[in-house]
Structures are given as structure tokens and as C-alpha cells.
């Protein structure tokens, strides 16, 4: 951390000898800025495109021959129709909003539960000696490296055969496997907890605090940064989880859909309609992304640190 001010990087101007030619350096600098600005514009472009269209009325597109860069009259038609013309609306609640709430609890419940359990297991590994400890840890680490991603679709067969793909039970495959401690999270949290000073815990033990008291009063507060990092990782993954919802909730009733599935269904429905509904479509996509983007903009420090925290350890 101290070295931050000293950090010299590959193309640093200060490291270049001044009499080597300031022009070359300046051109290099200009190029750096040019590339970064072009890349920024490239990232912003699709957002700009759908933002403008979300405010352009159907009537304007009816007369247009191409993309409308700027609407003559800003219309909120697209957003209003989200609350009136949604074919999957139940009881006046748009499917997108209902999907959002479903996503929230389907994501948060397993996330809190599994973080709690993972921390507990990591606490055991880092502060206690117990039967078969090394063997169990070796197994846990091995499991972490098993790439199970290739089997996410064939897992459907397992849940189908135990009756977890019918009716409300179809929520279970999205929730239950995530409730428990994850091998990767334990592996990630263990060294973090080992960094906690042993003396604090020994002092607490002398004070008569037991296993659970130490866990709640000392371990949880001290491991907050690591927990936040893991939480953000899990939350972004859960919020954007589409393939899981498609797998288990695609054939279920509308009230069970998650945000991403509602979004996909709504867009699929709108693309079959003849009237275009471009503003409606763009408003839908924009609103689906907005909550997470807002949270991110307010807590971007946690996001970026959280994401690089996990991989930086590799």
C-alpha cells in the first residue's frame, strides 16, 4: 500500500528521460487518452441507444426510416405501458417488479445462509483442531476445483426425478443447494480468519466465552470485509442468474418467475407484436438493469475491491 505513490508503470512519463524527446511522450500520452475515451464511448453506446429509444414514442417510429437519434417529443409511453400493457401482469403488479422481488428472496436467503455456514466452517478450520481435519480440508479443496458447470443442465434430471420441477417445488432447486456452506467460500475465508490474532480468541476463552459466543462476538465482526466481498460476488450472480431460472421456472406460472426470466419472456412476447413497441422493450431492459447499477454506483468501492479480492489471492 505504501508503494502506491512510488508505483512506476510501463509507459510512465516520469520514467522517460526528458531529453529523449518530449514529443514522442506527448503523442504516447495522447494515444493512451484516445484509446481510453474510445473504449468509454464504446461501452456507453448501447446504453445511450436504448435510453433514447425508451423515450421515443411508437408514433414517431411509425414514420421513421431509421434509428431516431433524438426524439422530437420525449414520451414516457414505454415506461407507462410497463404498468398497463404487461401481458404477464397479475393483480396490477408488473411481471418485472414481481420478478424483482422473487429474485431478491431467491438470492438473499441462500446467500445469507451459505455465508453464515461457510464462515462457521472456516472458523472451525482456522481456530480448532478436530478429527480428520486435514483429510476433510483436502477433500473440500478438491471439490472446489471440480468444474461442475458442464453438468448444470443435466442436474435437471435429478430434480425432475425427486419431484422438484413441478409447481412451487420448482423453486427448490434454485434455493436448497445454495443454502449450505460452499467449498470455495470456505477455502477463501479460512486464510482470512487465520489472520485474526490468536490472542484475542485466547483472551475470550479465558473470559469464559464458548464456541458460539466467540463466533458471534468476535469472528463475525472481524470478518466483515471478506464477507462483504463474498456477498457482492454472490448477489451479482444471483441477480443476473438466467439459465437457472430458465431451467426450472420456464414452464411454471408467472408468479414464480425471477427478474431475468420475466425480462426475457416480456421481450420475447414483444418481439412477436407487429407494432414494434421499441420504447416499451428498451424501457424494460433498462429498468431491469437499473437497480443493480444504482447500488453499484453508490458502493462501487466495495464492488471493485470485492471482486478483485477473491481473485487476487490466486
Amino acid at each position, binding site marked *: 500500500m505504501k*508503494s*502506491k505513490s512510488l*508505483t*512506476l*508503470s*510501463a*509507459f*510512465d512519463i516520469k520514467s522517460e528521460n526528458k531529453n529523449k524527446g518530449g514529443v514522442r511522450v506527448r503523442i504516447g500520452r495522447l494515444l*493512451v487518452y484516445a484509446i*481510453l475515451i474510445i473504449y*468509454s464511448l464504446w*461501452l456507453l453506446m448501447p*446504453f445511450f*441507444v*436504448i435510453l433514447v429509444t425508451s423515450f421515443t414514442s411508437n408514433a414517431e*417510429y411509425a414514420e421513421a426510416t*431509421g*434509428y431516431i437519434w433524438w426524439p422530437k417529443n420525449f414520451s414516457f409511453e414505454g415506461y407507462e405501458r410497463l404498468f398497463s400493457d404487461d401481458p404477464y401482469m397479475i393483480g396490477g403488479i408488473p411481471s418485472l417488479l414481481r420478478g424483482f422481488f422473487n429474485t431478491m428472496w431467491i438470492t438473499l436467503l441462500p446467500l445469507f445462509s451459505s455465508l453464515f455456514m*461457510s464462515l*462457521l*466452517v472456516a472458523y*472451525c*478450520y482456522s481456530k480448532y*483442531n478436530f*478429527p*480428520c481435519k*486435514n483429510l*476433510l480440508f*483436502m*477433500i*473440500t479443496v478438491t*471439490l472446489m476445483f471440480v*468444474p*461442475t458447470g*458442464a*453438468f448444470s443442465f*443435466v*442436474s*435437471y*434430471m*435429478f430434480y425432475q*426425478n425427486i419431484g422438484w420441477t413441478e409447481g412451487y417445488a420448482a423453486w427448490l432447486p434454485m434455493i436448497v*443447494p445454495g443454502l*449450505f*456452506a460452499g*467449498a470455495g467460500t470456505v477455502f477463501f475465508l479460512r486464510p482470512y480468519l487465520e489472520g485474526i490474532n490468536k490472542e484475542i480468541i485466547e483472551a475470550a476463552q479465558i473470559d469464559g466465552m464458548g464456541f458460539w459466543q466467540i463466533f458471534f462476538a468476535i469472528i463475525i465482526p472481524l470478518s466483515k470485509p471478506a464477507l462483504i466481498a463474498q456477498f457482492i460476488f454472490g448477489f451479482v450472480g444471483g441477480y*443476473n442468474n*438466467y439459465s437457472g431460472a*430458465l431451467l426450472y421456472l420456464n414452464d411454471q406460472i408467472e408468479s414464480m418467475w425471477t427478474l431475468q426470466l420475466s*425480462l426475457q419472456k416480456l*421481450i420475447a412476447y414483444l418481439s412477436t407484436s407487429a407494432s414494434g413497441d421499441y420504447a416499451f422493450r428498451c424501457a424494460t*431492459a433498462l429498468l431491469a438493469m437499473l437497480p443493480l*447499477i444504482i447500488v453499484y454506483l453508490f458502493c462501487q468501492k466495495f*464492488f*471493485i475491491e470485492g*471482486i*478483485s479480492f477473491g*481473485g*487476487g489471492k*490466486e
Partner: protein
Amino acid sequence: MIKNEIMTADGCGIGTVSSTPKKPLKKRKWKSVQWLCFGLALIPIISFAIFNGVPVVLSFISMFTNMENNDLTTMEWNAFQNFVEVFRDERFWNAWKTTFWLATAQIVTLVIALIISVLLDQKVKGAKIMQVLFFIPYICSSVAVAIMWQWVFSKDFGILNSIFGTNIDWLNDSQHPSRLIWCVYITIVWSAPAYGIVMFKAALKNVNPSLYEAAELDGANAFQKFLHVTLPGIKSVTLFLLLASITNGLAVFDAVTVLAPISWTGVAGPGDAGLTINYYIYIKGVQQSEMEYASVMSWALFLVTFVISFFVIRARNKAAED
């Protein structure tokens, strides 16, 4: 060595403990707290066994059988018929072609991420704001991103056709199905570098600055410094990102399902152009209830991912030895 440790420190190997009775230390009795820890430590292993182990074993068994509607009780041995069918299936091989082609987008992604993160590291003004912006694609869902690009590529009113004054049907032209894959490719290249940029940026911060000074004293120019100091300094993150890219790249699914929706006949996009391996697994296994068929493809995907990752790691280890 590890084995030894288990036996002595854990008391797991009961045989060893009793054969060395002269060391009473190892005969200690475990307290209840320690048994509690033991029980808790079993949680990740047992849950993995149930929710990952069992499905994988079932899919392995199902490869050699015929089933009715994925019902395990109707399993019947069928003498490797599934393998014969899958390997004769033209769609299977075409799906591999599409998958590999789309996986190359991950390499492009890594290069972009490396370039952008190195440039960001040049003490540019506004680097903080740019970093915040560059990470946004990571938190956008692949569905929403695909929808955004669908509108960009749209035939009649899309911004792309408007800029070039063309009227090309990018997404649904059965005469030129490869256009669709280009759109998916661009969607991936737009969104995927976000993660790499953050990871590379964090790794660049940890490169020892004195190495740059030393290289400078040796008269290295900017490019040589990049090649001999920066790249070796971030090689473990590069390997990590490369392995993650291979896994994600071969599993490509979300974007193609939005840009190439399945028709009622089970065809993915114009001329089946959007069919990737994972998409085909989904169509066969879930939509058409032929899990035994999908299982063969899943194991093929697993093996290909595994073998490529294995060679990448081995190549890296060899490079480390030299």
C-alpha cells in the same frame, strides 16, 4: 508426507495410533466442541455430494441407457447407442464449431482487458471514473445486454444500419446465418472484459516498482519493460483469467438464447446458427426430455474443458521451469 500428517495430527488413521502405543499424546480424547467442528466441516462435503455428486453420477449412468421422459425407473441398457447417435449427429459437430468460434471471443476479451488495464495504470486523469464505468458490463445481466445489442443490430431501425445506411438483417437472415454469430461475438466482447480489467488492475498494483527502476537502469524501453517486468508480474492472474475464460467460453449459453431463440421445431436461430453445445444440451435434455443424449454431450463438454485447461496449466508449468 501429507498422509503422515493426517495420521498423527488428526488421529484419523486409527490403525497408526494403536500401532504406536508408546506415544500417549496421540491417544487424546476429542472434546465435544471438536466433534461439533468435525460435523460442521462435513457440511460442504455432504451438500456437494448430494447436489453435485448425485446428479453427475446419474448423468454418467444415463449415458448408457434409454429412458422415457427422463424417468430413472425406466432405464434400460442400450449398448452405447447414445454415443453412436451423438457422434453421428451433424448438429452436435456444428454446435462445437459455433462454441469454439465463440470461445475465441474470450481470448479477444483478455487482450482487451490487459490493454485497457495497463493504459488505466498510466496515471491518467479520470482513471477512477473510467474504472467505475469499465466495470458496469459485469453487473449487467447477459439477457439485458443481449437485448440492448439486439436493438443496436435491429434491421429496420437499428443504429448500426442507420449509421451505414444499410438494411441488413443481422439477426434473422437464413441466407447469411453467420451474421448472427458475429452479433453474439460482439455482445460477448462488449461485456466480458469488465472482470478482466478489475483483476488485471489489482495485479498491476502489486508488481514490485523497484523492478521497473532496475529495468530502466538497464536501458529498457517502455515495451521491453512491459514484456519483462509487467507480464511476468501478472502471470498468475493471467493464468487464472485464462482458465476462467476457457470454462465460461465453452459454456456460452445466455446470449445465444436471447439472440437466437428456439423455433417451435427446436432450431436455434436462422439455419441453427446460434446452436452452441450448452444450448443443444438444454434443447435436448430439458425441452425434448432426452437426458441420456444430453448427458453424453455434457460429458463431452466436461472432457474438452478439462483437457484444454490441463494443457494450459502444463504449458504454464513448463514455462515456469525454463
